[in-house]
């Protein structure tokens, strides 16, 4: 009830006596709780001793004697520090190159004039409609021909250009008044200088929105790294984790899986909690709500 009271006090005067915003808020709280349950379960399952047996495994109430055994098991089965490092290298590597490619491509589609601009742009957007699985064999052949099989660079390469990112940056750049660029042009700024000092700083929210999408999707990618990587020491987190979550004949050690999952998502989760406000505002300003 305290929550409702506070909500009442915090609400703008005009809506203070209205019921709909409060209902909306309650619904949000309810949804958040539903969303929270898997995380809660993961946390509880991680700390539950295996001596509790599988009977209690599905319960959300924490065990009275929490244990770190599951975390230790998961830590021993997988070389997690290395998996973390590999995933971080993959995600940052992809993102850095993507920043360059989507800025230039986005700028070209937003501001440059060239023959067949619109058809080329639509052709580019068609990439969004292809299921990545479809391209596994041709991509892998290319990676092998380039001598990048079983390397982290091979995992990153197909994602260096992003149709979605280009689209996003094109939209962002188009929203920037051309007068700013014209002023810079009069001052003698080169093309790169104009992009660097006008377009990029003014589109930072779009960049961060794209960064979130890019990092989370590559952090979670499983099939492509599985195809490219052979050496155990080059595995990213998803492949490392699935060593103990995939099963052929129908049994699973839930405690260890929960612990492993927790370790895999923890960095993203913590980053999100710290930068929550910024993340959300970046989506709001970039128009993706």
């Amino acid at each position, binding site marked *: 009830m305290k929550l409702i009271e506070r909500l009442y006090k915090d609400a703008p005067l005009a809506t203070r006596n209205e019921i709909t915003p409060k209902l909306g808020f309650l619904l949000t709280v309810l949804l958040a709780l539903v969303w929270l349950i898997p995380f809660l379960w993961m946390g509880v399952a991680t700390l539950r001793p295996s001596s509790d*047996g*599988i*009977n209690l*495994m*599905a319960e959300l109430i924490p065990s009275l004697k929490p244990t770190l055994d599951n975390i230790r098991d*998961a830590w*021993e*089965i*997988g070389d997690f520090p290395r998996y973390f490092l590999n995933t971080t290298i993959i995600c940052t590597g992809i993102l850095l190159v993507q920043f360059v490619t989507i800025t230039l491509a986005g700028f070209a589609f937003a501001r440059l004039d060239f023959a067949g601009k619109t058809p080329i742009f639509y052709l580019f957007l068609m990439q969004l409609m292809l299921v990545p699985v479809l391209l*596994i*064999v041709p991509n*892998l*052949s290319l*990676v*092998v021909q380039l001598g990048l*099989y079983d390397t982290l660079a091979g995992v990153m390469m197909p994602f260096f250009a992003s149709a979605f990112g280009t689209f996003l940056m094109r939209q962002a750049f188009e929203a920037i008044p051309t007068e700013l660029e014209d002023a810079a042009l009069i001052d003698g700024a080169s093309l790169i200088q104009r992009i660097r000092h006008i377009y990029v700083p003014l589109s930072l929210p779009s960049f961060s929105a794209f960064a979130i999408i890019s990092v989370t999707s590559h952090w979670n990618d*499983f*099939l492509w790294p*599985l*195809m490219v990587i*052979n*050496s*155990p020491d080059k*595995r990213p987190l998803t*492949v490392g984790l*699935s*060593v*103990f*979550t*995939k*099963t*052929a*004949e*129908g*049994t*699973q*050690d*839930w405690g*260890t899986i929960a612990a*492993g999952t927790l370790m895999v998502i923890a960095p993203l989760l913590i980053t999100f909690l710290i930068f929550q406000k910024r993340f959300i505002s970046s989506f709001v300003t970039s128009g993706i709500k």
Partner: protein
Amino acid sequence: MLFSRRLMLGLAMAGSMAGALAVPALAGEGPTEIDLFFPVPVDGKLARDMGTLIKEFNDGHPDIKATAVYTGSYDDTLIKTRASIKAGKPPAAVIMSANFLLDMQIENELTNLDSLIAADGSTKDQFLGQFFPALSGNAVINRSVYGVPFQNSTPLLYINADKAKEAGLDASKPPQTWAELTDWAKKLTKREGDKVTQWGIAIPCAYDYCGWMMETLTMSNGGRYYNEEFGGEVYYDTPSMLGALSWWNDLIAKHKVHPPGATPGPAVSTSFISGNAAMMMLSTGSLTYVRENAKFAYKVAFIPRNVRNAVPIGGASLIIPAGVEADKQKAAWTLIKWMTSPEKSAWWSRATGYFAPNMAAYKTPDMVDFLSKNPDAKTAVEQLDVAKPWFATYKTVPVRKNLEDEVMLVLNGKKQPKDALVAAQKAADETLKPYNAETSLKLP
């Protein structure tokens, strides 16, 4: 004096370094490096066991350096193997789901092992003679050997003996027919009003598992899933399969003794262990897990019959993909023979619950000892007398999914068995069309 000593030391070091550098050059090439692709059969601890196994092999074979490469589920392993063959980087050996061999052979993705067997001075019959006869159906194609059985399974009926006793049933006399099983399941289901607190039986249905369970039920219903001699035909829309699916559906919809919906394997084993389901049909590959986690007396039994006792083989074989260079092929062959030897085969069987395909494994002292302590490990082996090959067709995975998608609809209460099987047959015929056009329908 000091100076000269330094000089001497420096010279000595330079010399030793030159020596160290020269050693690899003098010894020629290093060990043959090979990759072994492996899916994880049960859980992560076994991935570690696989590491132990390969390390032992490398220690005993200094001229070969094998690396165990984890490749996901059975289906993922097929995708990865195929992609790497097409990209020109095939691994030297793969632990491949036994029923994918035919499809791979049709696509020319397998190395025929006959010449490797002959080079050892052995005949095909001698070589295959080491393994249980029921396994050759999935290892031999057109009278040539393409796979070596490594970890194999049959489906089993697991019974919670404590719950059976509670319900006045004797788990030492397990149900032998579907009628008896239905009866047991009814007695073992507990209800509070409309809510079920304990299910009589659970049978898994998820991709990969569902097709295998449908083959199990169809076979014990007198039928067959596919044409064992030819990869272009499946028998989905048949009385034996309709009977099987209808019975499974009745357990859910009519008798209400089986949890509704398509339940994945891990959920089935979890609810059996937790006492939420009193019986389950699951692979012998889960036996070690059940043994280690069950806090009650349990019993494993043959799959009950409606018409006859029959079960399919499951599990995986070792293969050498096409396009592996000769020296790597030789190294892979050494690894394969080592892994399927009686001792290693027996060790892996004890670790996983799969039965050891090599018959001599059961004569090793460790295994004799193990079986005397764990008689439940014998059931799958005894059941081999009635075991038949695992379904294998052209494009096995899509053809299997054509059926699985429909079976899931039935179990979820969205379709009737007959309609589902007609639709599955139609979809599968479509998938098999290109192969039939090239083979059975190509008239001279």
